Every structure is written in structure tokens, then in C-alpha cells.
């Protein structure tokens, strides 16, 4: 089973990369670009075959390592 773990800076946490991309898009002539946020997507293969348990495992991985919950929020999806 594969999990997709998506990690993003929390609202209110400065995302300077997002800001730089926002400005670059404006510079390229894309009109009306609002806020850009950057994050990470990780695909994790697990041996678990039960979807609920696999998701719980992914969430534990995110809390312990994949995300820093001081600054980031995460979602775990089963692929």
C-alpha cells in the first residue's frame, strides 16, 4: 500500500519560497496571482494492507518525523 503524505507550512508561518515564486509568476506576466504556498509531498510504501491502519501509521510517521508540527500541517492519503 502506498501513502501520500503532504506537508505544508501552517497558516501564518512565513513561506519565503512561496513569496519568491509569487513574485516570479507576476514577473512572467501571469495576472491575478494570489498567495503561493510551497510544501512537500512524500510517497511512502508500507506493508500494511488495512487502509485505516496504514493511514494511522502514516499519521504517526508524519507526527514523529515527516512534518514538524510546530510549523507544518500534514495530510495522509491512501493511494
Amino acid at each position, binding site marked *: 500500500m502506498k501513502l501520500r503524505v503532504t506537508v505544508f507550512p501552517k497558516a501564518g*508561518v*512565513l513561506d*519565503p*519560497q512561496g513569496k*519568491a515564486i509569487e513574485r516570479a509568476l507576476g514577473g512572467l506576466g501571469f495576472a491575478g496571482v494570489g498567495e503561493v504556498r510551497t510544501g512537500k509531498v512524500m510517497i511512502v510504501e508500507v506493508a500494511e494492507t488495512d487502509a485505516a491502519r496504514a493511514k494511522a501509521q502514516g499519521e504517526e510517521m508524519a507526527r*514523529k*518525523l*515527516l512534518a*514538524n508540527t*510546530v*510549523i507544518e500541517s500534514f495530510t495522509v492519503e491512501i493511494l
Partner: protein
Amino acid sequence: MKASIVVFPGTNRERDMAIALERTTGRKPTMLWHRDAELPAGTDLVVLPGGFSYGDYLRCGAMAAQSPIMAAVRAHAERGGLVLGVCNGFQMLTEAGLLPGALLQNASLRFLAMNCTMRVERADTAFTHHFQRGQTFQATMAHGDGNYFCDAETLKRLEGENLVALRYEGENPNGSLNAIAGILSPNLRVLGLMPHPENCVDPLVGGTDGLPMFTSLAESFAAA
């Protein structure tokens, strides 16, 4: 004083730290490998030095914070032992939850290799008692992710309990909240800071502004 320096793959400031400690304490610190599970018996101070442990993969300090040695460092801190984390070491301490908050990418998006000036906010700790409160001093900095961040409640607590040890003086170089350069644990035994005082201990190389941190540490244990 018995000091140990933890070396991770990608650490690069451990020798500067060893020189600063040996000069001031007269004793060579022990180098520990991140896979070691224990600190040498009688360790007074553990240092997590600067560098780019694990190539800064995932987040700066995130992998190092999960290393086998960190359980021993945590137990040392819980016993009231001294822990100093500089630069990448500060990032590890926040990732390990030994200090609150996190170090975000510099607001300018640039890696900053330059001198900075810090103001001493606490001169009554084992790390800083050879400084004067309000004194400013120079240290070098070399980081891409030194922008101190924490939630509003944590910031209020840090300021309310006087746990900000060092603040950038003048221009805030990296966007840190309240220009925070270094913070302490509530028992004042764990200090994390981004700039490198260990690189300012020799008049021939960058001056000696960082020396009081190490003479403070040396004396804390000479007296003990």
C-alpha cells in the same frame, strides 16, 4: 569540565568547538559519534555543533534529532546537565523538542555567511555569566535556516520568563521573531543559538568576542 561534542554525518564545526573548549577548560572534549548510545560517565556539557547533518535532508536537524545519541542527550538535559546547540545544533534541539519553536528559512532566502552583532539578554547563566547584561558582541554566522519562529503563546512565554538569551542587535539578519538569536530552556541549562561564538576565540581569526561564553562554561565547572 568534562565536555562531549556529538558528531553527525555532515557536521563541520566540531573542531572549532573543540578548540574553543580546550583553550578555556584546558581539557580536550570527547568526540561522540551520533550512533553512540551513551555519554561518557561524568559528562557536564554536551555540545551539538554546527554543520549540515544529513545534508539538511527533510528539515535542518530533523534526521539528527532521531539519532541514537539524542536519547542520551535528552536524559542528560532532564538531569539538569548542560547542553549547548550552535547553528545546526540549535535546529536539532528544536527538532528534538528540547527547545521550543523552529528555525525557518532566512526571510531573505539567502544563505548568510557574515558577522553579526548580538546583545546579551541573560548574563546570569552557566553559558553567559562572563558577559554583562546588555553587552553587545560579534560572532560569525553561516546559515540558510536561522529564522526563529514559534507560535504567539510560546513567544509570550519565552519573553515573559526571560528565556531569550541573545538577540540580534541592529538589523535583524534572518527575520527571526523579536530578533531572537538564542534561547534557553526554563531551567537555563540548555542554550541554542544560531551564530558561532566558537569561531571568535582567537585574536588572529575573527577576534575574541565569543570567548566569554567558553570561559563562563569553564568556570561554571571549575567552581562545581
